[in-house]
């Protein structure tokens, strides 16, 4: 873990989404922090709020959705919650870089790679177009593109998925951000390419000393790159701590189930997947107790009524939102 003070500190962040037909709370009192040079992985199943958590406060939401953010996000000495649009816009692409999940659709099909990278440098580094295009070439070399001069003249449809994701990364780091948010950067890619992209991100993070928030549901990616891990379920953080501790000795019943669900090499061919029974709760109605209670094997009656807060476990670096874990470890094994 890094010893420097956090560059990003999120405290009690809640986000409400209002569409024409419904109101949801996809993020519910979430807290975490990331320091420069450190990677926080946020894992959780689809719909657990991990993307909204990172994108909504930056103003990166699809049209037709209005959001309400409460709590606090301190980034680089500035408060992002309630920040005016213009100031937030200057941060986006400048000190905060973003990588999206699907490089097939995240790049503009009608523009050259050169312009799509260079405009970021023009905007945030105040470079002329010639300087910015020279920087685009440097960036393509930095993301280890083969034949970078030729790539600059190409259009996205002429590149493979892995190359497009490298272009996306080049765009995200064009202004040397202090924080890089990567939303499932390898999900849409081939397995062999995934490893290359993760290695590249790790290398770039070290070179630029960026803080990185990696949203994923791939535990392999988490183990390979992250230093800290936040496990999310139904918009809440269930467990939070150093990656090694959480992955090898999960405390929260949900984390246990999540890690147990990963297929293992010793599984016999044709054996059934170990999944978690049941479905995540609907986020429209308030959940008074623990969000995981309906699927939890260890639940006690108070889990239905009292919401457990993140609290240190026996290993004080690991926080878990489960009263059972902290009361006695025997209770779990007996269940």
């Amino acid at each position, binding site marked *: 873990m890094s010893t420097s003070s956090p560059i990003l500190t999120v405290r009690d962040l809640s986000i409400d989404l209002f569409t024409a037909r419904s109101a949801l709370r996809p993020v519910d009192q979430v807290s975490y922090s990331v320091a420069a040079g450190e990677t926080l992985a946020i894992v959780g199943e689809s719909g657990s709020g991990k993307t909204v958590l990172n994108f909504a406060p930056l103003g990166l939401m*699809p049209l037709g959705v209005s959001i309400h953010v409460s709590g606090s996000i301190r980034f680089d000495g500035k408060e992002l919650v309630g920040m005016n649009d213009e100031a937030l816009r200057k941060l986006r692409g400048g000190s905060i870089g973003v990588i999206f999940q699907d490089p097939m659709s*995240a*790049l503009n099909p009608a523009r050259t790679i050169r312009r799509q990278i260079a405009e970021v440098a023009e905007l945030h580094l105040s470079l002329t177009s010639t300087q910015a295009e020279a920087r685009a070439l440097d960036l393509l070399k930095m993301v280890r593109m083969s034949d970078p001069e030729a790539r600059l003249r190409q259009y996205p449809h002429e590149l493979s998925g892995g190359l497009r994701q490298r272009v996306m990364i080049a765009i995200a780091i064009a202004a040397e951000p202090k924080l890089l948010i990567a939303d499932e950067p390898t999900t849409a890619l081939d397995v062999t390419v995934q490893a290359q992209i993760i290695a590249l991100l790790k290398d770039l993070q070290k070179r630029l000393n960026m803080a990185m928030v990696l949203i994923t549901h791939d535990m392999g990616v988490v183990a390979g790159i992250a230093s800290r891990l936040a496990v999310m379920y139904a918009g809440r953080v269930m467990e939070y701590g150093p990656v090694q501790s959480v992955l090898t000795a999960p405390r929260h019943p949900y984390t246990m189930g999540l890690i147990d669900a990963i297929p293992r090499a010793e599984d016999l061919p044709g054996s059934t997947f170990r999944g978690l029974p049941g479905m995540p709760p609907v986020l429209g109605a308030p959940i008074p107790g623990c969000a995981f209670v309906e699927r939890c094997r260890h639940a006690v009656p108070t889990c239905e009524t009292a919401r457990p807060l993140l609290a240190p476990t026996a290993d004080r670096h690991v926080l878990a939102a489960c009263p059972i874990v902290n009361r006695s470890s025997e209770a779990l094994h007996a269940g």
Partner: protein
Amino acid sequence: MLSLVSRRVHNSLVLLVLATLLCFTLVVSAPGNIAVLIAELRSPNASFADIQKIEEELGLNDPIPVRYAGWLTGALTGNLGISYKTGEEVGPALASRIPVTAMLVAGGGTVALLLSLVFGFAGAMWPRQWPDVAGRGVALLGASMPSFFVGALLIYAFAVELRLVPTFGLAGPSSWILPWFTIGLLPAAVLSRVVRVGLEEAMARPFALTAVAKGLNRRAILFRDALPNIAPTYINALGAQTGVMVVGAVVVEPLFAWHGVGDLFLTGIRFRDFMVVQACLLIFISFFILLNLLVDIGMIFTDPKLRRQGS
């Protein structure tokens, strides 16, 4: 890319030959004996021998393929035959009228281009606010009113009441304005919706979110990211609307007493002056084929996926 363009050019030439055949067939198969018409025009009490003589003069007794070949070689050298009504050569009459129609359509096209881009872009920049609502209203009006009605309204307002421009005729820039707006309003209405809807669709695509993440403002995203993506669609629609304007010229030219091809075509039909009709049709069809060719080439140039094909 070049092979793609040359294939389009080749297709257009084949189409053009087929079109001449169609033009010719239409006139040959038109009911009534042209020789009788001409004979009656020359003298009210023409005899059967007179008619036969005229048939011989016009080559009406030749086999059809020979007549087609004769007409085609004539057309290629600008000799489009003689008007049955006036007895004048059709070629020079047409040549003097083409610039008038071209000027009308080009002016109307410019009006449509400017209005549609301004209204479409303003609507996308401030969706559901007053520029969008106003643009939508103008588009609805423009698309629902026939051009002769629009023309009459414009004449009444700007020529009769305000006396800013002449009511009709072709004499200097002030007389161009009303015909241009009359013919350009419908295409402007249709095209402004193409721009507005296209931009909105482009803004909902993931690359627009990437542009937001880059820190660009809405105007920059619309210009740099959304606009290039609607260019092929827009060029296609602009081509179609130019076709609509050529047809519209048949109505608008008589309204403002402009002596263009549309006006000539209309009088040709009224007097069954088939040589004139045939020549006008040939010009119209050639123009449509050329227009389609230009649209195809324009789309190849604005769509990177098409541009890289075959290169």
